[in-house]
């Protein structure tokens, strides 16, 4: 991939784009330009709504019966029926509102989710969105119709990171709301009890869902690159404070984080869950390629 192409996925460049749609399109078009466009996998269509004819619409899609009734031209809109229902789960807790390089985990997650929704819908699959902190903030069930992307994007744009995380509990709740099996894509920093999280993920699997976990972490969370005497205050639990010399604990800290990541990764593997660690400095194509790899 050339440098020019890489710029499509640079989180810092994407951050300059204010419109989430543009961001998603930017990312997806960037990656799709390099691969063959796949055709729709759906095998049936379902009428959804009428709309007035406008020049350019196909003549064959005019509803002649409606013309007879109303003496006006209507076009019949159908919802594609697909065999993939993707649930995009975005963690919006306060811990996601952290950036050491200018892009918060939340922003990164939003673009990632938007890109995935764009990609999924573009491929005629159904995409839904669930945002959550320690409760479900919004729930948009997966649909494959056109224009649904804007609904998802609007929901994302209205969301602000706040509140504490309770990933494990939320996953169990979402799993209860899912009526049909599909693909669950979790975008979170997973800063919660790993066993609770895995419990929720395992429930998704138990219900026959495929699960992809995009584990977002800031580079500073991985490396703890601070110096001097620092008073760390937790973004979610404000009473949680600690004063330390980061330099003196850096090595151990890295080991602790690594152990955490390894534990989650190992558990995911054992439960056939795709796990992808995504530092926020990682270009977004990594995540999309990972998804496409699974989709392919």
């Amino acid at each position, binding site marked *: 991939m050339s440098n020019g192409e890489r710029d499509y996925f640079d989180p810092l460049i994407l951050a300059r784009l204010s419109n989430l749609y543009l961001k998603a399109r930017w990312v997806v078009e960037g990656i799709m330009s390099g691969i063959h466009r796949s055709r729709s996998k759906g095998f049936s269509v379902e009428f959804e709504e009428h709309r007035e004819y406008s020049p350019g619409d196909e003549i064959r899609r005019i509803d002649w019966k409606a013309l007879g009734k109303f003496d006006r031209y209507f076009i019949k809109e159908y919802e594609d029926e697909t065999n993939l229902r993707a649930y995009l789960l975005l963690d919006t807790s*306060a*811990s*996601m509102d*952290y950036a050491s390089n200018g892009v918060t*985990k939340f922003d990164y997650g939003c673009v990632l989710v938007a890109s995935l929704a764009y990609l999924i819908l573009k491929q005629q699959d159904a995409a839904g969105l669930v945002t959550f902190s320690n409760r479900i903030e919004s729930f948009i069930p997966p649909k494959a119709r056109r224009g649904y992307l804007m609904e998802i994007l609007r929901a994302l744009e209205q969301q602000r990171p706040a509140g504490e995380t309770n990933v494990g509990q939320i996953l169990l709740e979402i799993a209860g709301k899912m009526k049909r099996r599909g693909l669950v894509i979790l975008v979170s*920093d997973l*800063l919660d009890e790993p066993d609770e999280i895995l419990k929720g993920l395992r429930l998704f699997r138990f219900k026959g869902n495929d699960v992809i976990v995009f584990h977002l972490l*800031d580079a*500073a*969370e991985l490396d*703890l690159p*601070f110096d*001097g*005497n*620092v*008073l*760390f*205050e*937790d*973004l*979610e*639990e404000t009473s*949680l*404070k*600690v*004063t*330390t*010399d*980061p*330099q*003196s*604990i850096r090595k*151990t*800290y890295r*080991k*602790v*984080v690594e152990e*955490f990541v390894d534990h989650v990764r190992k558990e995911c593997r054992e439960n056939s869950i795709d796990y992808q660690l995504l530092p926020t400095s990682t270009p977004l194509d990594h995540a999309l390629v990972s998804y496409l790899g699974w989709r392919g």
Partner: protein
Amino acid sequence: MSLFFLHPLYLLALAATTVPLLIHLLNRRKVKRIRFPAVRFILLSQRRISRSYRLRHWILLALRTFAVLLLVLLLAHPIFQTGVGLFAGGGPLSAVILLDNSLSMKWSGGSEDFKQAKEAARLLISSLNDGDRAAVVPTNGFDKSPIRLKGEKEILARDVEAVQVSAGTADFSVALARAYELLREPAAQREIWLLTDMALTGWENFTIAALGQHDPLIPLKILRIGGKEEPLNAALKEVKMRGHGVGVGLPIHLEASVVNFGDREIKDLLVQLYIDERNREQKLISVPPKGEVGVGFMLQLARPGEHQGYVALKKDGLAGNPISYFTLQAQDKLRVLVVDGDPQTALVQSETFFLARALNPAGERDSSLFLPTVIIPEGMGSVALDAYQVVALCNVSAVPDAFLARLREYLHKGGGLLLFLGDRVETENYNARLFDSSPPVLPARIREKRTLSEAAAEKIGEVETAHPALQLFADERLRDSLQSAKVHGYFRTDRAGGSTLLSLAGGAPLLVEKRVGPGRVLFFTTAADRDWSDLPLKTAYLPLLQSLVSYVAGGKRGAMDPGVIVGNPKTFTLPPSYVGKSLQVIKPDRKERGIIFAAAGEKASAAFQENDLAGIYRLASAAADIGGAAQMYPVNSPFLESRLEAIGEQELKRKLEPIRAEILDREALEKGGTRTDLSLSLLFLLIATLASEGWLAQRF
């Protein structure tokens, strides 16, 4: 074993050892606040490493502090010393060896102490290395020859040999000031060694301010010389004479004071009196601890003139000044011709009864300095005046012409005249013979007689105590006695031509002096007996008459000279003909030193400074030439120098503050010792510490 520093000023930088701790505390106070999502991981990490982290943290802090400490110590250049650590290691040395040669070094331990001090000095010199320099400075008399630092051990050893015990007290202020002056030149190491018996006397007047400019950082090592056993420590404090005057054939009462400085009683102490090198008397005494005993001696001198003497203490193992020198100026008896102008059959009513008794109270020939011979006025024509030193005329009515001529001649030969008036005196005769004729003998014209009732009698007012004849009356009791005398009969006089020595309360002269050639005349305006005053009944009468007779005789009353203390000057006063002349002073060691006389008022005066030995000093001149002045004088050692009591270590250190003084025993010096320069070891240790610190810091 001890540790000292060549550049101790750097030790002030030890305060810098707190810098790592301060930085640590400062960093702890300077906290950055960061809002962070993964605080739980931080907590977990901290819990895991908490114990080892803290341990490493403190080790790191300790290493940093230790490194600063090592650096400061390295700069201060530490030297480790075992024993007294003779001069070895630490770079070229400049040392001054102060050798206490005060008299106490001779007395303590029977001269052994001074030998030991010299041996110690030789040992120090032998320990000098190539490049080291030293100087030997005696505490007394070092100003006689130039002293400089030198590296030749042989010459330094000779300097030690040349130092002799002096007769005075050590002047540590001057000696130490000289030592600091010698060490002004920079050197890697500088030291002062003081070899002393630490006798208290030498340090009593010592003040650090007297040292002047000095570097208190130069180590002062005081080597205590002398045994730890306390010797029998007694000394002669002084020899005094009791009574007035020293005359040929008269009993002389001397009293020697012996002081025991020790805590033990001294028994069977032999005290001997020597006069003119002959043992005249000796006594055995006991002196209580810390006590003083007076030992009395009686003696008579067979010939007039100067005599030398001393009192000596003798006992084995006795430490302290055993000799006190003195000289005696013995006067021959003064023959006094007393002319009684109003003789009575009852002696007590005689005009001269009180006068003769005052001059010879016991009435015996050998009991007084004065030999009064009383005659009546009829004998004046035939008496040979030259047989007498003084003539006293008491209430003699008139002076015969033949006697007057002989009296004038007598006065011109230096004779003395004591003149009392009375009710028989014919004033016209006196004025005509003694005042109006030339040269006048009377100091003033005699006027009318004044007789008062006993109730209205006048007391004696002014007493010219500055006059040599009345110096005795500087004593208040004697003067009070004299001034209590009441005079109710006297002759008025015109204004006195001589000096008035005594006046009545009303201002009238009572005693007037006049010089007639070399002769002296003392003129009383009242009578010699009780007829006109009660003066003869007063205590002051005897000393007054004896003093006046001695004065008009022109000579001194014999006396004892206790002399001067070693180190103090002796002033000679001679007739003015000696101005510009040089005389030799012969010291007790037979060495002669010249002194030159300069004008001092109407006299020639010279001071002899070199009284550095105890003993008898002589002025080499013929007695006649120097106007009767004493040719001998004694010089005695300072009494307190005999006190061998040592100053306490703490007190000495306190006196020497802020000098870094260390007090050592002689045994420690003999055992020797070594010095090791710790700089290199400290440097390696510092490098190792810094490496450890670096390694440990990386581990964090």
